[in-house]
């Protein structure tokens, strides 16, 4: 049972795959006009479907598309900026610009060519997480509807604070960072460092990079156990995968639950670990919301529900609100968001605005 | 008894064998001669099971057999010792001996290495080879490898319950005289257990070892005779369909060398290989280098051409000090090298004839606008007609040419490069009789033009016949220098006595 709850897309996937294959085989039958001629194609462009975060994102997109009966396309960059941009241009070309695009750019700079292509084609676009600091939705009215991010600095700092509280406000911690040049990795590390500056009794023993991967985090944590041994009072990780890798390295030595670990992202395994008391905290961004509302907002702009140009800046570039999951709220959070199918009000466009993005 | 009846084989519509009938009787050594392309190798491949006939049949002791693979042929007691070295160099001698047949040594799924070693020692003893079967094949000398191949073929007698037929495809082409003698004595010893088919370009050898000789021409057997009844000249005439030129090595064209020295070598040595080698090579001179494998002559020519560096002594080219750090330096100073391994070192087989001809001096094909295909092709066509290279076009990849024509392309390359000193390493290896004569003529032409030639030849006869002087090497040092002027050629025995 766990499996199907965990990957609700599993069975559907197989069908869509077969449809895709069949479509390719019967190539001549492809490309007939869409059923709903005027309905824009909804597009989610994400890094990859092989990680649970973006897989859930994709499910959000599917749910919204099903709700309004629009055609839906998922594009994956596989970490290749060129491919990401090329695919979006291709879809714009194919739909003649009648598209609503929700994109998590592979890298911040990708956002500019993507937005420019969408503007040129007349599609509506919303970006998430990554964009250059000098690229603003209000410079591209009305097509560039919004940019949504989550405050990596804030939440990186907040998980660090939870960790520091868990170890009693003093002692040494180690930190696992994501890919060095990655914007999210940089922000979360900045938050960590800010919190550390405010807690002079806590020492950062070492900062290492595990490229977001649990396997590398496992090896790094093992080596840390040699280097620092019992001096490690807590482990901060910039994402949940690495936190899980660290947790399993501890478990291999029977230390699970004895050294607090925090992660970020709110994937299911991490939330379960928090429930079990083996992790101390994670941050839930709600990728289902990101995948669904990232389409709903530009869709409503396109259909005229609101005029982007008339919206205040805090609706154009905003931080979404996230949930810090700790041992205190883990049970209720699990019941609400993981055990049950997520329920979203797709019309509630601005419900999770938690403030305008800082201009650094 | 192995019999072939009216065997036919065609490749893409071209008939390579046109109804060959052939017989090997028990305990017999059968010689098989013919020019390249006469169909010898094709016949051997059919008998060894590596290819299948298009028509006709093969009989073993009177029963028709189908040889679809070397394995089938082995089961019929037929084994082949291949022309190219076919040992796998990173495997041990024992593993090579039983490659593909190691099933009999498997105990509980694992190879019983002691049994394998015992069996290998047994097989090596048959050919009188005293080496450790656990050594890697790559560590052996060429002669030892050839013996291992022979032992590998003979190993068959323990597996099949009948007399053996061993096919020897040019087994002597890489061997020196002493080693050939050893091989022949082994073949005679083994005649009680096996019959042999012996293919070679060296007609005197064929007659020396064989009981009976078949001559092939144009895909058919044109003659069959007892070896005692024919001479090399007879065989040659039957092979090419005309008489041997009385003057095989064009001795009358041998002019005295010029007085100026092209290459001077003084006290040259390389530790462990050769020492204190000194000689002068004059323009227009052919200097023959005789010696067995291990005498140091291979190492010497590799040092002369810059593949390796000497530890002692020095060299001069045309009066200027010469210390090559690479073959490129050698070429820049006007040296050229015709290697014995034509397929790997002589030519880039997949490139066109034109590209190979200009490889050593590409500027001959350059124009102010870059490399010009048309200039290159014009150059190539010029050489094709001057050297009589038989090729469909100047654009043909070299791998599609016959051995003799390939060798002409190698010579054309060095003449294009303007080489004034040529090192010829076994220039007639794998070249058929007709083409050999053309190579000899080209060597004489080069001398006339004043090119200096250092020759390491296939046979002593060839060395003596072509050279103005012969240097004999033994154990890394020059043991004799014999003049070989036209009309005053030394006896072979005089050279052999300095070799061993």
């Amino acid at each position, binding site marked *: 049972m766990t499996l199907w709850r965990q990957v609700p897309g599993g069975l559907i996937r197989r069908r869509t795959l077969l449809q895709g294959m069949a479509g390719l085989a019967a190539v001549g039958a492809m490309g007939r006009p869409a059923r709903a001629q005027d309905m824009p194609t909804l597009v989610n462009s994400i890094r990859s*479907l092989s990680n649970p975060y973006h897989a859930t994102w994709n499910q959000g997109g599917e749910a919204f598309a099903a709700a309004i009966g629009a055609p839906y396309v998922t594009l994956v960059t596989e970490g290749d900026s060129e491919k990401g941009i090329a695919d979006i241009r291709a879809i714009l070309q194919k739909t003649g610009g009648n598209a609503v695009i929700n994109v998590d750019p592979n890298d911040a700079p990708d956002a500019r060519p993507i937005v420019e292509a969408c503007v040129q084609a007349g599609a509506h676009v919303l970006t998430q997480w990554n964009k250059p600091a000098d690229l603003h939705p209000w410079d591209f009215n009305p097509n560039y509807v919004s940019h949504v991010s989550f405050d990596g600095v804030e939440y990186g700092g907040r998980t660090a604070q939870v960790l520091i509280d868990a170890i009693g406000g003093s002692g040494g911690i180690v930190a696992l960072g994501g890919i060095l040049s990655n914007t999210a990795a940089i922000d979360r590390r900045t938050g960590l460092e800010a919190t550390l500056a405010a807690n002079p009794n806590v020492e950062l023993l070492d*900062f*290492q990079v595990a490229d977001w991967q649990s*396997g590398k985090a*496992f090896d790094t944590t093992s080596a840390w156990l040699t280097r620092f041994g019992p001096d490690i009072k807590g482990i901060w990780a910039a994402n949940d995968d690495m936190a899980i890798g660290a947790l399993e390295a501890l478990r291999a030595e029977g230390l699970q639950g004895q050294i607090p670990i925090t992660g970020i992202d709110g994937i*299911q395994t991490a939330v379960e670990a928090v429930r079990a008391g083996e992790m101390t905290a994670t941050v839930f961004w709600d990728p289902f919301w990101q995948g669904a509302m990232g389409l709903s907002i530009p869709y409503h702009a396109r259909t005229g529900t609101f005029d982007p140009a008339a919206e205040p800046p805090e609706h154009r570039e905003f931080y979404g609100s996230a949930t810090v999951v700790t041992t205190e709220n883990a049970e209720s959070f699990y019941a609400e968001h993981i055990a049950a199918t997520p329920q979203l009000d797709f019309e509630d466009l601005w419900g999770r605005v938690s403030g305008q993005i800082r201009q650094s | 008894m192995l019999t072939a009846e009216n065997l036919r084989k065609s490749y893409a519509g071209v008939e390579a064998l046109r109804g060959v009938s052939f017989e090997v009787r028990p305990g017999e050594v059968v010689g098989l001669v013919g020019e390249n392309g006469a169909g010898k190798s094709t016949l051997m491949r059919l008998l060894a099971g590596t290819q299948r006939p298009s028509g006709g049949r093969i009989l073993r002791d009177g029963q028709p057999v189908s040889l679809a693979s070397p394995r089938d042929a082995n089961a019929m007691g037929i084994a082949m010792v291949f022309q190219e070295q076919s040992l796998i160099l990173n495997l041990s001698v024992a593993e090579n001996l039983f490659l*593909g047949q190691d099933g009999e040594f498997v105990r509980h799924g694992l190879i019983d290495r002691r049994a394998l070693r015992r069996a290998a020692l047994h097989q090596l003893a048959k050919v009188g080879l005293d080496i450790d079967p656990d050594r890697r094949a790559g560590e052996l000398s060429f002669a030892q490898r050839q013996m291992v191949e022979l032992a590998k073929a003979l190993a068959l007698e323990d597996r099949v319950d009948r007399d053996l037929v061993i096919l020897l495809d040019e087994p002597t082409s890489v061997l020196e005289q002493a080693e050939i003698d050893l091989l022949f004595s082994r073949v005679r010893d083994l005649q009680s257990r096996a019959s042999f088919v012996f293919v070679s370009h060296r007609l005197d050898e064929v007659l020396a070892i064989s009981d009976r000789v078949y001559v092939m021409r144009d895909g058919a057997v044109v003659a069959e005779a007892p070896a005692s009844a024919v001479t090399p000249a007879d065989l040659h005439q039957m092979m090419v369909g005309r008489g041997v030129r009385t003057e095989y090595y064009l001795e009358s064209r041998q002019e005295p060398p010029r007085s100026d020295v092209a290459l001077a070598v003084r006290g040259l040595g390389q*530790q462990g290989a050769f020492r204190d080698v000194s000689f002068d090579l004059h323009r227009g001179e052919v200097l023959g280098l005789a010696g067995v*494998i291990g005498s140091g002559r291979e190492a010497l020519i590799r040092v002369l051409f810059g593949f390796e560096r000497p530890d002692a002594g020095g060299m001069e080219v045309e009066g200027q000090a010469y210390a090559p750090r690479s073959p490129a330096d050698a070429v820049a100073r006007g040296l050229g090298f015709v290697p014995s391994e034509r397929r790997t070192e002589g030519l880039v087989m997949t490139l066109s004839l034109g590209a190979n001809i200009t490889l050593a001096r590409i500027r001959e094909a350059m124009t102010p606008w870059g490399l010009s295909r048309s200039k290159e092709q014009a150059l190539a066509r010029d050489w094709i007609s001057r050297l009589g290279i038989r090729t469909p076009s100047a654009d043909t990849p070299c791998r599609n040419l016959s051995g003799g024509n390939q060798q002409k392309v190698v010579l054309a390359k060095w003449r294009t490069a303007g080489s004034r000193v040529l090192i010829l390493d076994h220039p007639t290896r794998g070249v058929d009789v007709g083409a050999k004569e053309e190579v000899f003529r080209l060597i004489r032409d080069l001398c006339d033009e004043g090119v200096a030639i250092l020759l390491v030849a296939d046979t002593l006869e060839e060395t003596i016949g072509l050279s103005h002087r012969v240097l004999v090497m033994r154990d890394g040092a020059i043991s004799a220098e014999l003049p070989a002027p036209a009309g005053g050629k030394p006896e072979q025995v005089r050279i052999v006595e300095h070799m061993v």
Partner: protein
Amino acid sequence: MTTTAGKGRASARLWTSVPWRALAPVVVLAALCIALGLAADNFATAGNFARIATSAAVPAVLATGVTLVILMGGIDLSVEGAMAVAAVVAALVLVAAPGALGAVAAAFAALAAGAALGAVSGAIHVGLRAPSFMVTLGTWFIGLGLAVWLVGGGTVSVRDSELRVLALVRLGGLPLSVWVALGTVLIAWVLQSRTRLGRALFAVGGGEDLAAQSGVPVGRVKVAAFALAGLCYGLGAVLAVAQLGQGNAEIGTGRLFAAVSAAVVGGTSLLGGHGGVLHSLVGVLVVVVLSNGMILLGVPPYLQQAVQGLLIIIAVAVSLDRRGQGLVK
């Protein structure tokens, strides 16, 4: 041209009679360990060696697999794809069938999935005579795609499954996974040196056409080698799933180049025919000890990649037998 015995210099002969080149990777490993032992107090401790062994288990199994293919002169790029499929299959079986029996079934299913993908690579390579480099690049993508499709992109958590005894139960101070990896290397070593298939791998690596001439069934040997390699990747996936408590399509990320580097650092020639699984084990240890050491020494993250690159070049440069090989591609 004679290029081997008979023309080496006398002193050189004496020098080369000791197989320095073959031993060089071991010397590199020993030197690395001694240097780290001097530089970092806690490097040479039982606990750290156990951790190094734990970290080396998965790479060792993967490098063993890739070595079998490299010995033939081929290359197998499908490591990450095969691992992904196998890991996901293992996790799905674990979820569907809990308990010890489920764990066994999961392990076998993963091995089968890895072997199947390997066999497909081998069959395409042999059947279509397409270069192994490109075929396995293709099966890499196919494997990843299959894995993503099977789980719809998610991660399957198997935190409490019985399979995890591999990582969590210790024997003689080392997790079972280390013993499994060691056993695998040993079995592969016996296979490589004492079975017909193993010797055929060397024969194919030394001269494929010659081996075929001598009656070695080259096609079958190749397919078998790719399938066995796939089996190893499947096992690597099982160990990784047991270690990390989850199965997903990204479990193999970054493991291909590490495995090939380890094989080459250990002295296995990419041209085929030389080296073996024990060499690769040494290579894996060099790489794992190095990354362990860099963390012990606190090398800044952005330098680690560069340091590792430099050390790999040095290790390979000192251990390559240049006399034996005419060319280096």
